[in-house]
């Protein structure tokens, strides 16, 4: 991209060229929050599974498909092993219809269903939130939040925190590289990797936190304290009617679902 093109690009709305990535951040947030909370509050495997499937279908149509499924896959396995193990152990030998026998003791159907409820509640919740964070730029979300009245100090803090996490990651990588240069093993499985950065983890985190004081100064030199609304260089397209409808629909769905499942079922 030439400089001229780059500068011109700020005149237009910022776009990624993918319908879900370009979905208005606030509408997307409402959509995902609604579904996520519905999954959590209703706590039924049918609902959780439904939301999880919806998130997965969306994921297929975005550029983050692979990342989404690997992360969720790992969580699914971890979730299964943990929740299934614990739940079945707890309910082992409970009365009620029996699904199968484990070590000679009956495993009731209710225990299996309760496992499924927990697993899919988590999967639905995590799925929809990961979908949100993988496809939304924090700065765009913050911009939209600022538009509806969140203070610029608050958005700056959010953005700095995320930037801070990024810088910690980067510094740890640097450390790993310098350790490799000194002949310390850093490649290999997770244990080796963790071992190689563990001794410097705390200093790096503390170091990143003290950097915040410098940031305060840097911000003060940029007239950050100026009262009144800040303007923005990046422009985000206002939410389109369809996006508002989808977000509103999800919210209604969430409330209806909670009422339905909690009150009558």
């Amino acid at each position, binding site marked *: 991209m030439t400089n001229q093109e*780059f500068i011109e690009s700020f005149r237009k709305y910022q776009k990624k060229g993918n319908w879900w990535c370009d979905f208005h951040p606030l509408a997307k947030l409402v959509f995902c929050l609604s579904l996520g909370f519905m999954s959590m509050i209703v706590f039924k495997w049918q609902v959780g599974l439904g939301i999880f499937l919806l998130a997965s279908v969306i994921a297929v149509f975005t550029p983050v498909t692979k990342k989404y499924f690997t992360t969720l896959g790992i969580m699914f396995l971890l979730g299964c092993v943990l929740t299934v193990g614990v739940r079945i152990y707890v309910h082992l030998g409970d009365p009620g219809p029996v699904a199968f026998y484990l070590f000679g003791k009956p495993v009731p159907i209710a225990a299996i269903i309760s496992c499924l409820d927990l697993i899919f509640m988590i999967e639905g919740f995590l799925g929809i939130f990961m979908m949100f964070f993988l496809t939304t730029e924090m700065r765009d979300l913050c911009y939209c939040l600022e538009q509806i009245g969140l203070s610029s100090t608050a958005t700056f803090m959010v*953005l700095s925190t995320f930037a801070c996490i990024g*810088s910690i990651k980067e510094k740890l990588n640097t450390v790993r590289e310098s350790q490799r240069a000194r002949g310390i093993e850093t490649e290999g499985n997770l244990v080796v990797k963790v071992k190689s950065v563990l001794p410097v983890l705390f200093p790096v985190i503390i170091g990143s936190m003290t950097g915040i004081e410098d940031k305060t*100064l*840097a911000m003060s030199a940029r007239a950050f304290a100026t009262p009144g609304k*800040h303007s923005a260089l990046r422009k985000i397209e206002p939410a389109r009617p369809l996006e508002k409808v989808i977000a509103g629909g999800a919210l209604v769905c969430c409330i209806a679902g909670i009422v339905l499942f909690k009150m009558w079922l």
Partner: protein
Amino acid sequence: MSVCIEFENVSYAYPLTKKAAVKQVSFQLETGKCYGIIGPNASGKTTICNLMRGLCPNFYNGTLKGKVIVCGKPMTEWDEAEISVRIGYVFQDPFAQVSGIKETVFEEIGMGLENLGVEQEEMMRRIVEIAKEVQVDHLLQKHPLALSGGQCQRVAFASVLALNSDIIVIDEPTSQLDPEGTEDVFEIISRLKAKGKTVIIAEHKVDLLAEYCDEMLVMADGRLLAKGETRAVLADPALEENGVQIPQVVQLANALAKAGKPLGAIPVNEKETMELLEQWRGGRDDGAGSK
């Protein structure tokens, strides 16, 4: 001419330190002039800059005695938001000045303007203009955290210039720059002066300071050793006695004066030195009666 910054018997100590970083300093700076602050390491240059901008004691805490007056108003009455626009401050460490939340240099330079609520069109125009002036236009698309020291310093400079402050305080703007980059920065500074801005620079590169600054403030061990018109200050023998580095051309002039063969004036750059030397040699040749 009007006074824009005034120090009245200012002493300041950072918190948890017994020794004052700046001791009983009094001076007045006039609007539209370019001032250089020189002195050895830890002599208090940065502290003087911090005091002018109100960061000492507002940000660093510590104890301040005396009065700092900016544009006729005591520092204590200035609002942080107002002073940050009135006085642009480029810090000594360029990396500490990157906001960390912008993904391109273009947006980084624009950040101050966003904070002021400048309209997008106007903002873009100003960023492009300043990027050209500071010669970072080829970096606009780069990530601000992926810059070299010199590039970062220029971007930091540009980010502050974007605010278009009347007074600009610059703490070692060229510490990371090569000789060419240093000359560029001083070119920009002379253009700022031409626009009527008051510029205050703390620097170690005395040779260039001497050439561009109207007046000099010399710091030594927290005290103001001398202040005044550049040539007069540099000729002061107290400077060398206190370990303050002075330009080579001035050293030459001083040495000649000491040897009883004065140059006639104190030069501040090579061109002047050559001319003075030319005259000086002419005078001596005539005196000796040769040729």
